[in-house]
């Protein structure tokens, strides 16, 4: 009797297991099928395009991660460009900015045989073997924002040169303080390579072209909000005649602006540097900051998409001196090391800051 009832229980639970397994599968299948058609709206029949081998160019953006306002902005520019070209735009990417996740996406895109991949790399060398395979499959590879080793891609779209960044900041501060007086620099860490290179170039530019401006101090906020805030306060204490501060780091400029906003120096001591519109919006609107610089990620994405298209249709090969037209941005020439330069840094002020959200 015991044995029989146990047998029955065994069967019953077996039946239950089958039922639950079936339910799980049904849910999974529903998830799969609901995902697939949804994606076809955006991809517009990607598989048929790949299989048919038609003339449609498909350009895929692969940012460092999704849900990042900076890359949302660059993808917006890329999408606009691909629509102008008449191609098919797609954006894929990991939720975490890791190189291994990007490799999986590059492999998938290689299988899908897209025409071009436009990416910002999470690691300069980790993506190389997967990008090599993509190139071997006839896919054009364009990097923007963050490059990979030069031999692993066809083209790099550089947002700004060090010279351009240094000059833009010197021009802004000299204009704001009337080309005369004491200024100081609030930098990131003391050994930050980029910042140090820019500061050296700024010094050279100041000495050569702005003899009435003296750079009295360089302080380091370590790219930490509170440290940058404190260093700004100290700077204003120790240099009572200070007329301007340049902060070539997004953390520094935002912290310095926050200090100036509630101090007596608001409007009297000018502040400029490299910042993002979302960080700086309030300070620009209330007059704490007149203008600051950075590149325009939307233009960067737009140019990258046009560059990818020019590679696909054979207008350029990545050779130095090749030229192509990038829609509203005009004509561009490929420089050394297969690099295209977006141009001068973009200046954000009260008139244009509301056009940006990153």
């Amino acid at each position, binding site marked *: 009797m015991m044995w029989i*009832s146990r047998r029955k229980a065994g069967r019953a639970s077996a039946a239950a297991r089958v039922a639950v397994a079936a339910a*799980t599968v049904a849910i*999974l299948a529903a998830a799969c099928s609901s995902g697939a058609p949804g994606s076809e709206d955006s991809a517009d029949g990607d598989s048929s395009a790949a299989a048919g081998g038609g003339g449609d160019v498909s350009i895929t953006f692969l940012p460092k991660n999704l*849900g990042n306002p900076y890359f949302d902005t660059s993808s917006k520019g890329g999408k606009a460009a691909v629509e102008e070209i008449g191609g098919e735009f797609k954006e894929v990417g990991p939720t975490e900015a890791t*190189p291994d996740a990007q490799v999986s996406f590059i492999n*998938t895109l290689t299988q899908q045989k897209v025409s071009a991949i436009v990416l910002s790399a999470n690691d300069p060398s*980790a993506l190389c073997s997967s990008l090599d395979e993509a190139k071997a499959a006839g896919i054009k590879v364009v990097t923007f924002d963050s490059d990979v080793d030069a031999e692993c891609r066809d083209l790099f779209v550089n947002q700004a040169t060090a010279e351009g960044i240094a000059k833009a900041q010197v021009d802004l501060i000299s204009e704001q303080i009337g080309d005369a007086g004491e200024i100081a620099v609030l930098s990131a860490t003391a050994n930050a390579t980029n910042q140090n290179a820019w500061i050296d170039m700024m010094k050279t530019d100041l000495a050569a072209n702005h003899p009435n401006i003296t750079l009295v101090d360089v302080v380091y906020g370590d790219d930490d909000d509170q440290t940058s805030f404190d260093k700004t306060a100290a700077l204003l204490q120790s240099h009572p005649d200070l007329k301007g501060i340049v902060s070539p780091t997004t953390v520094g400029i935002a912290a310095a602006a926050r200090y100036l906003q509630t101090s007596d120096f608001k409007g009297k001591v000018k502040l400029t540097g490299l910042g993002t519109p979302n960080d700086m919006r309030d300070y620009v609107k209330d007059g704490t900051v007149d203008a600051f610089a950075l590149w325009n990620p939307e233009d960067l994405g737009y140019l990258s998409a046009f560059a990818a298209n020019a590679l696909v249709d054979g207008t350029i090969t990545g050779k130095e001196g090749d030229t192509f037209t990038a829609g509203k941005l005009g004509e561009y020439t490929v420089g050394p090391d297969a690099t295209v330069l977006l141009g001068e840094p973009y200046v954000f002020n009260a008139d244009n800051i509301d056009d940006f959200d990153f």
Partner: protein
Amino acid sequence: MSQTLTPARTVPLTPSPATRWRRTLLGRDSAVVGLLIVVVIAASVLVPGFASTTTWYYLLLDVFPILLIALPMTLVIISAEIDLSVASMLGLSSVIVGSLFEAGWPLPAAAAVALVVGAVGGWFNGFLITRVGLPSLAVTIGTLALFRGIAVGILGTRAVTGFPDWAQNLVTSRIGPIPSVIFLFLVLAAIFWITLHATAVGRVTYAAGLNAEAAQFAGARVGRLKLGLFVATGVMSALAGVYWTLRYGTARGDNAVGLELSVVAAVLVGGVSIFGGRGGIVGVIAGVLVIGALRSALRLADVSSDVINVITGFLLIATVIAPGLWARFGERLRRRTT
């Protein structure tokens, strides 16, 4: 070892052939294998491009580190413990390979040192858990931070690259359409399968998970077993770190951040009970492949990453609650029949 385990043998652990067949066909392992088959067939039909050798080549390369770590993790979780420090050990191993290679060491020697560090790290976990008596969750959350901290401390935000081509080509090489590293995995999987399902060590592992005190009273040296399991987990994590370094050609302190959760998720999807005592190697391998195949198929179908995460999260919950559901369902049926 065998002497001390004699009492365990008095328990009738060898079921009749009929029962054994029924268990095999209706057990959790088969349920997960069935799920894998369904997912693969569904993906092959619904997702263009999924049914290709290229898909499987990349898929297997992607899941290889998870497969490696899932083997010892299966035994650890069956013994009712957990190791959350595995991804940090992977990162530390990667950094050790990278910095020794940079210092001029030959790659095999650097890899060997990384494996030794893996063993030491695993032993450290096991020591704190079995000898000091701390809970494994707390200890391995601690070493998760500790190992990662050391890894990032050694290299900072730098990455070591420039590993020799022969080594990088070796890990991504294929035999037929299958990555050759998978054959290494099959050998390791066979060793873990035999250990868990056909040796005294395996029986003690289950016994420790079901009732550690009873197992202890029965003469099983549970502490020593667990110490060994943590050492094995450390070594396998370090091996995954060597693979990771060579596959991506870069040694970074932040390699594989968060992978421990993928491993634990795959083990649970594979039918291992988080409370210990239940589960098997075959189910876990199928579990890893179910998640890998699903993610790969959804990526190919251009489903966005957030949706992919939601679906795999849902799969995890479904597979964890399913055993409970069918136990309750079976109970109700039984009541109706009597």
